[in-house]
């Protein structure tokens, strides 16, 4: 297969792939940050004492988890303008990624918090700490060590999900492969190059996971 590969054209298109790689990084980072915020908030609401808030957060999480990201993306992209909300493609894309990954992160954070043994909560309560102090000093620091690996796993999923943003004409890594296909009719070369860049992002995130594991290992009892 590789003898028929046209490497010259790949080199010609490298500037395009590089700029699209940076765009994917930026979109994924923005989506990740948003997802963390939305996820933590949704988790907090989900485990709160107020039934209404818990129900509202539940509706959000369940509706996101039960529908495909592509459907959500098209819903925002084609549906919102028809009710008057007009956003740039980048904003729509980041919004879809944020809301989608946020729901999964809410579940991950919830599992992390609830995995802290009840003994810790009892000890904190009997030491006189209130809810906020308990969360900040005892529960969350321990939960982070448990939550970080699945969170980083979700981050990797988010980067791969960002490929769908090519379908709303965002210039990102998958779109770079599509452009090379439509201009030079070389889908194999184009999408292989895209895949290699995605692999690069994956290894960066994987390195981050290992590093954070090493640093936080003392947190795991």
């Amino acid at each position, binding site marked *: 297969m590789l003898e028929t590969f046209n490497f010259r054209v790949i080199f010609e298109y490298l500037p395009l792939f590089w700029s699209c790689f940076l765009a994917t990084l930026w979109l994924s980072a923005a989506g990740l940050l948003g997802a963390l915020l939305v996820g933590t908030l949704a988790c907090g609401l989900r485990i709160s004492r107020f039934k209404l808030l818990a129900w509202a957060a539940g509706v959000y999480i369940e509706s996101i988890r039960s529908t495909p990201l592509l459907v959500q993306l098209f819903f925002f992209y084609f549906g919102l303008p028809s009710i008057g909300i*007009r956003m740039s*493609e980048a904003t729509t894309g980041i919004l879809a990624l944020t809301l989608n990954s946020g729901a999964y992160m809410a579940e991950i954070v919830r599992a992390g918090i609830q995995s802290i043994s009840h003994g810790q909560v009892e000890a904190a309560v009997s030491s006189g700490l209130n809810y906020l102090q308990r969360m900040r000093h005892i529960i969350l620091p321990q939960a982070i060590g448990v939550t970080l690996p699945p969170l980083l796993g979700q981050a990797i999923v988010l980067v791969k999900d960002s490929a769908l943003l090519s*379908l709303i*004409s965002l210039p990102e890594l998958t779109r770079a492969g*599509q452009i090379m296909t439509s201009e030079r*009719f070389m*889908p194999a070369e184009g999408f292989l190059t895209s895949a290699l860049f995605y692999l690069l992002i994956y290894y960066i995130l994987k390195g981050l996971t290992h590093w954070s594991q090493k640093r936080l290992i003392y947190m795991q009892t």
Partner: protein
Amino acid sequence: MKRVKWLIALVMVVGFASMSVAGTLEEIAQRGELRVACQTQGPPFSFVDKNGKRAGSSIELCEMLAKDMGVKVTFLDFDWDGLIPALLSKKADILAADMTPTIKRAMKIGFTKPFMYTGSVVFVKANSPIKTVEDAQKAGLKAAVLLGSTGETDAKNSFPKAELKSYKGGGPLLIDAVLQGQADFGVNDSSAVIGQMANFPPNSLRVLPDLLSKLPLAFAMRYDSQDLLELVNLFFLNAGLDGRLEQNLNYWVNTLDWKKDH
């Protein structure tokens, strides 16, 4: 055991060597099926009508061709930029769409002689301040084009200062983008724009009068299907002579008669 392996290898070599390379026409005749790569979102050439059936100028021409050939026709759907990869990967025998034979494309696939001529036009929202092509050449405007189309190339050449938004899919996406305000103007084939405008509210779009380019339209085949290429050229010649081609184009492309039934 070694002798058995040697025997198997010999049989395989002989077997592969005796496999004849059949021409595409022979393959089609044996299969009894002509596989056509076409668009889903390309009225009036290839689309899905309001009854949910496939319809369009290219669809009808392929049905005529298959009937003349004595085989059945199978249509395979692709986005505009997926048509050529589908043909090259042998998923289809023939590409039937309103595709222009450009030299870049002809480096990979062979085109028939043109069956009609059109040109790129600029279209805007009806109340847009853009009245001429010069207006559209101002800096900072957004142009909606179709990924992998001649409109995309024409827009790059004619409007170098515009920000190009390439949509993946079909022409109606461009019209939608212009109407929603996500682009200030769109560039596509005149035949495609006129046909697709009919699906949107009347008088919502305005087409600028100047043609940016003159474009022939043709069907395409792989270069290893020279026999099929000759056949389709013959088909267009015959259909031109007996009036079927003119009838097809008058119904689908030159007028909006098709709107009544589809």
